[in-house]
């Protein structure tokens, strides 16, 4: 190692842009002045090894770590012997009104920051965090910037796709800039790497511990890698998302610590020159800015200009909690954007490196046994098998546990394949992608691939993702969840001072404050912490009592509730986060059901999220529902789910799904619903439209229903028709009222809704125009399919009968067409069973048609008269059933008609005979037999027949 005298750059810097070359030289010059910039990638074992060696070698007086400065207060807790990574520092937004909630600063055993902390304390350095306080971030700004933020950014931003990322699990270490950099992408392409993660592995993680302990070279290379991608972004972008402000703070703190005068950089600042070097551990993306600012290069101006005149003063204070974390949330692959993916893999890699360093396999090792032990508490002794083999064996085992057997020769073949792949890709040892490719190559024996839901995919997720759960010392501060729950409940004006049950009567539709109360009560109910229960009122999840305006809850804050919340602390730091976790668990369960998942089940989940006010998650759930709709083959389930959605949309005002409506109600919390709600309500309605399209696709199935499924099919089809009608109205409300925002008056949408009848056609026309304005007619496909089914002679008779009947009611089918169809179905010679099924369908759908349409009555009457006695008997049970859809008064009026026709009295026809079906059948059979006997004896004329 050519120690500190090395100021010149290695040859490899030759082709680098001038700006990078001068910054690199500046970094070397700063080392001369005792300021060591350590650019790292978060959760990189390679950087961790280098950081550790740098600390051991330099024995710095001060170690500055990128992380909100108020975390410095937590250093003792972080160094506590009972603290085991993965842990995270949790920050909550200062104003309760900030949407999105908490942010996390995760630390794994292989995070350079963690290693820096522990090693620095072992060598007696002063450890401080040096980044802008977490509370100073402005999420709305960073969300607006195109590629959002990077680095252990305090303003860890939302992903571009809302709903993909859990806003409660934002990490302070996302690295969006690197992932989106064009230079990084080009480099990856040139080196044959599939993404920036593989590129990183290729360039850095594949280095042997031997190479890694040469920390100067590693840091120079990491610096070059990150600085190249930094050049892809303009200062405006970096200023807008707060990167420059943060870099100003970090460089300012570094200057202070090193005793450099902030305003004449490069010159020693006499009074407080530290007793040793200063090591600054930050995300590599910021190193360019730090170096330029500290060395006084002109490019450092934007950052230096931000230095306040009087310095940054004493470190900011603020609340933050040390909480346990787990690998699952650390995994970049699982959508939390926490830096490197696959913590399980890198933990092993780091443990192996540490073992090598420990056992002296690495040259120059053995600096400090104390710190080594501190970092790798559970690393085993002696050289183990290669990480790749270890991982392959574990994946094979985990797969076998799940029913996918992997033989030892397969494992061996995979180990060979992994090294050959590494060789082919010019890497000294197999990296993550090489091992994954070896698994794909050798463990898969069909065309299904690894498959995230298959045993092998799950095994890989387990081993690569890791299952580690961290520990924090007992007796810390009150878990945020309990505090949050208390605050939420208090904020909406519920009384928690007494332990006597109290009752809340709420009018969620008209009073926003009540809406907020209902949301909190429902949310705590979802958590099942025994706080409150609903006594009466609408149940939006079950779809019951939706017309009711008031609702009643009983609640009581007891020690049991607090105990339960402590138990639930692992679910999340806030009530919302815990609720989200529960919803997610349910969601996972439904996802696991895969193709069997019923659309209605997912719709229930959507309803649940809406009721508890977790509107930010609706888009994701809506996405799941969208996919489920695609695979659900059950018309009944699709229709039921769609009805539930429509119900939610109708209750959008009281559920706070509309722009403006949540504003005052959610003021206590300033819920995101305010910003996104309008979109959600609209999205629900769009989803309804899409569900109708799916239903339209399934309609032909109803047409092919057999005799056993026919009834269900009739019900589904009739419900679908009603649903299509309701959707059209809803659509008209939405477009006609100039958007839901204007729909502030309770029930405004409903007043204009006409019932079926003469007015309906006019309403349909209006709807039509309004919808045309949007350019879409949601129910058209359903109406079309239903019409197709109705006009198709091969449709199951009951379904066809029902459709003709409702068609007639709606005015789509003229009476003569209906009558002709009925005559046709009941014509002499037709199969009586089919005829009766058809008639049953008509009666099920619109029994009163028989009374209002004389021609229909005649047709049915005539057909039944013409039925052969045997046939009549055979279909009688179904026939009787068909007529039960008439109301008693209708039955009586029908009886009057029949009496008129047959010349008897209505009372004789419409009579309740206290015999059952069997009696009747037996009697008829006897009669028939008697008639046969008489006929045989030539006495047929006694019964009115011909002899």
């Amino acid at each position, binding site marked *: 190692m050519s120690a500190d005298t090395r100021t010149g750059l290695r040859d490899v810097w030759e082709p680098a842009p001038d700006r990078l070359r001068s910054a690199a030289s500046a970094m070397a010059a700063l080392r001369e002045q005792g300021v060591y910039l350590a650019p790292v990638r978060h959760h990189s074992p390679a950087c961790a090894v280098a950081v550790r060696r740098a600390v051991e070698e330099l024995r710095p007086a001060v170690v500055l770590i990128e992380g909100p400065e108020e975390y410095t207060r937590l250093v003792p807790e972080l160094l506590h012997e009972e603290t085991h990574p993965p842990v995270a520092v949790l920050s909550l937004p200062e104003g309760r009104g900030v949407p999105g909630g908490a942010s996390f600063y995760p630390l794994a055993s292989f995070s350079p920051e963690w290693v820096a902390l522990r090693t620095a304390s072992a060598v007696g350095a002063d450890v401080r965090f040096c980044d802008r306080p977490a509370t100073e971030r402005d999420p709305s700004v960073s969300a607006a910037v195109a590629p959002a933020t990077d680095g252990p950014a305090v303003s860890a931003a939302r992903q571009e796709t809302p709903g993909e990322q859990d806003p409660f699990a934002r990490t302070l270490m996302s690295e969006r800039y690197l992932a989106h950099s064009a230079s990084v992408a080009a480099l990856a392409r040139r080196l044959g790497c599939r993404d920036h993660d593989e590129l990183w592995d290729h360039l850095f993680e594949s280095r042997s511990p031997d190479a890694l302990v040469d920390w100067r070279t590693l840091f120079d290379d990491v610096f070059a890698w990150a600085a190249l991608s930094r050049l892809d972004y303009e200062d405006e972008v970096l200023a807008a998302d707060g990167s420059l402000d943060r870099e100003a703070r970090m460089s300012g703190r570094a200057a202070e610590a090193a005793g450099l005068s902030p305003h004449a950089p490069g010159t020693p600042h006499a009074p407080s020159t530290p007793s040793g070097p200063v090591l600054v551990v930050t995300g590599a993306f910021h190193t360019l800015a730090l170096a330029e600012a500290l060395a006084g290069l002109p490019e450092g101006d934007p950052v230096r200009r931000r230095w306040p005149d009087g310095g940054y003063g004493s470190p900011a204070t603020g609340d933050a909690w040390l909480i346990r974390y787990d690998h699952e949330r650390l995994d970049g692959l699982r959508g939390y954007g926490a830096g490197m993916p696959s913590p399980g893999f890198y933990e092993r890699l780091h443990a192996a490196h540490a073992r090598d360093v420990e056992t002296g396999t690495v040259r120059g090792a053995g600096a400090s046994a104390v710190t080594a032990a501190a970092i790798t508490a559970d690393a085993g002794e002696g050289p183990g098998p290669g990480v790749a083999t270890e991982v392959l064996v574990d994946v094979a085992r985990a797969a076998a546990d799940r029913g996918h057997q992997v033989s030892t020769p397969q494992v061996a073949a995979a180990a060979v394949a992994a090294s050959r792949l590494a060789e082919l890709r010019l890497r000294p040892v197999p990296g993550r992608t090489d091992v994954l490719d070896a698994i794909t190559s050798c463990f898969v024996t069909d*065309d299904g691939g690894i498959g995230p839901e298959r045993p092998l995919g799950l095994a890989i997720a387990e081993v690569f993702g890791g299952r580690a759960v961290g520990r924090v010392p007992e007796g810390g501060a009150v878990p945020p969840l309990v505090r949050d729950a208390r605050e939420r409940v208090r904020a909406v004006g519920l009384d928690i001072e007494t332990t006597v049950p109290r009752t809340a009567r709420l009018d969620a539709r008209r009073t926003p404050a009540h809406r907020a109360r209902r949301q909190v009560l429902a949310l705590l109910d979802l958590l099942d912490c025994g706080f409150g229960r609903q006594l009466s009122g609408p149940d939006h999840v079950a779809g019951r009592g939706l017309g009711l305006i008031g609702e009643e809850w009983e609640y009581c804050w007891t020690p049991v509730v607090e105990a339960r919340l402590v138990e639930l602390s692992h679910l999340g730091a806030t009530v919302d986060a815990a609720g989200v976790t529960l919803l997610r668990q349910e969601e996972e369960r439904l996802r696991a059901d895969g193709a069997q998942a019923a659309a209605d089940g997912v719709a229930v989940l959507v309803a649940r999220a809406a009721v508890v006010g977790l509107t930010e998650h609706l888009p994701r759930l809506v996405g799941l529902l969208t996919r489920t709709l695609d695979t659900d083959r059950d018309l009944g389930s699709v229709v039921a789910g769609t009805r539930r959605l429509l119900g939610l949309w109708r209750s959008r005002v009281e559920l706070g799904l509309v722009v403006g409506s949540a504003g005052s109600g959610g003021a206590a919390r300033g819920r995101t619903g305010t910003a996104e709600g309008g979109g959600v309500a609209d999205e629900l309605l769009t989803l309804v439209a899409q569900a109708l399209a799916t239903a339209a696709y399934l309609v032909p199935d109803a047409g092919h229903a057999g005799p056993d499924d026919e009834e269900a099919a009739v019900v589904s089809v009739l419900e679908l028709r009603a649903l299509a009608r309701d959707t059209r109205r809803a659509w008209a409300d939405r477009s006609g009222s100039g958007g839901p925002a204007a729909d502030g008056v309770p029930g405004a949408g409903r007043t204009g809704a006409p019932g079926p009848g003469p007015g309906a056609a006019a309403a349909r026309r209006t709807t039509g125009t309004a919808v045309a304005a949007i350019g879409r007619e949601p129910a058209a496909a359903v109406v079309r399919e239903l019409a197709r089914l109705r006009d198709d002679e091969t449709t199951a008779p009951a379904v066809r009968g029902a459709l003709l009947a409702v068609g007639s009611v709606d005015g789509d089918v003229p009476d003569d067409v209906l009558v002709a169809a009925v005559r046709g179905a009941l014509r002499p010679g037709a199969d009586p069973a089919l005829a009766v099924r058809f008639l049953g369908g008509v009666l099920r759908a619109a029994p009163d048609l028989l009374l209002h349409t004389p021609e229909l009555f005649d047709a049915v009457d005539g057909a039944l008269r013409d039925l052969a006695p045997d046939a009549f008997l055979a279909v009688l049970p179904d026939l009787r059933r068909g007529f039960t859809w008439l109301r008693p008064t209708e039955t009586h009026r029908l009886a009057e008609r029949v009496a008129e026709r047959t010349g008897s009295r209505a009372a004789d026809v419409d009579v309740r005979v206290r015999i059952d079906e069997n009696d009747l059948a037996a009697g008829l059979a006897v009669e028939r037999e008697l008639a046969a006997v008489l006929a045989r004896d030539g006495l047929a004329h006694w019964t009115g027949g011909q002899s």
Partner: protein
Amino acid sequence: MTTETTGTRAHAASEQRPPVEVRYAEELAALAAWDTERGAERPPGWRLSPRAVRAFVVGDEQLGVSRKFYGDDPLVDRAVVALMGRQGLMLVGEPGTAKSMLSELLSAAVSGTSTLTVQGTAATTEDHVRYSWNYALLVSEGPTERSLVPSPVMTGMRAGSLVRFEEITRCAPEIQDTLVSILSEKQLMVPELGPDAREAARPGFNVIATANLKDRGVHEMSAALKRRFSFETVAPVRDRDFEIELVERQLAAELGAPAGRPAVPRDVLEVLVTVFQELRSGITRDGAPVKRPETVMSTAEAVNVAVAASLEARYLGDGRVTAAEVARQVAGVALKGDEEDARRLRHYVDNVVRERARKDKGWKAFFDAAEALWR
């Protein structure tokens, strides 16, 4: 078979489709020179180093080697590595995903020949996999080396070459299983020539099989055989623009230069590829789900549709290819008369195309033509 192999080069110019090693002879030579220059190690029996094989398939601008296989570079890496191992390589996937082309490229690069091929069909017998006899010689001389006719597999074992087994799942399972002992023992017993007569595989021998596991009329593979292969699934192309480019290129290959045929305009190709991609993935580009037909919506099928549409325009239409021709061909060529699939397509047209037809002329032509098919 051996004569055929040596004869290929001589007749290359007059062949309809010369084998890969002839078409890209210069590139292969350049790669071999590159290997020598670098002193790269070649696995026993290989003509090129693994890196050179990879470069041959995915291209290398600096060496002037064109890219021939698109989409999944890690898959190529895995395939190359699998061929170095004891196991064979099984390329599986839907029809039209360039499995056969990949196997040709790999054989040509590794062994310098892609013609040692067994074409699997229902009529493939054990003789095609092992060996058979020249019956005239067999009668006159009895079973001798001279009267034995080696299969491509046996030839490959002798020469230490890669052997391609196309469509292996179309063979009866017992025929497929002939490979089991060959792959595990790397030798082939010839009892007719004496109790100890055997053909031992030289280094470099291995088998690349291609298979379709889902199509109709394919057989199951035995577990024993599966264990002797590394499986690689070749996926269809996902990138829309790239698929359009592929179709365009294939179209030129099928029908000749655009000058001599009705041009298929870019917007028509876009409609075609979009329809294929959406039906293949079951999701529209706006994220709305659609019903996936059972039939294979591969790029190759898209090319077929484009070809048919072009022919229709030329001989039956006014010489202009529009989305209307495409619509008629999609229904006819792609959905081979399956009623359920027709229904799915109708659903797609009803819900997705109808919407687009309002704003876009190309889609309108498609919609009108498709509507006319079932009204």
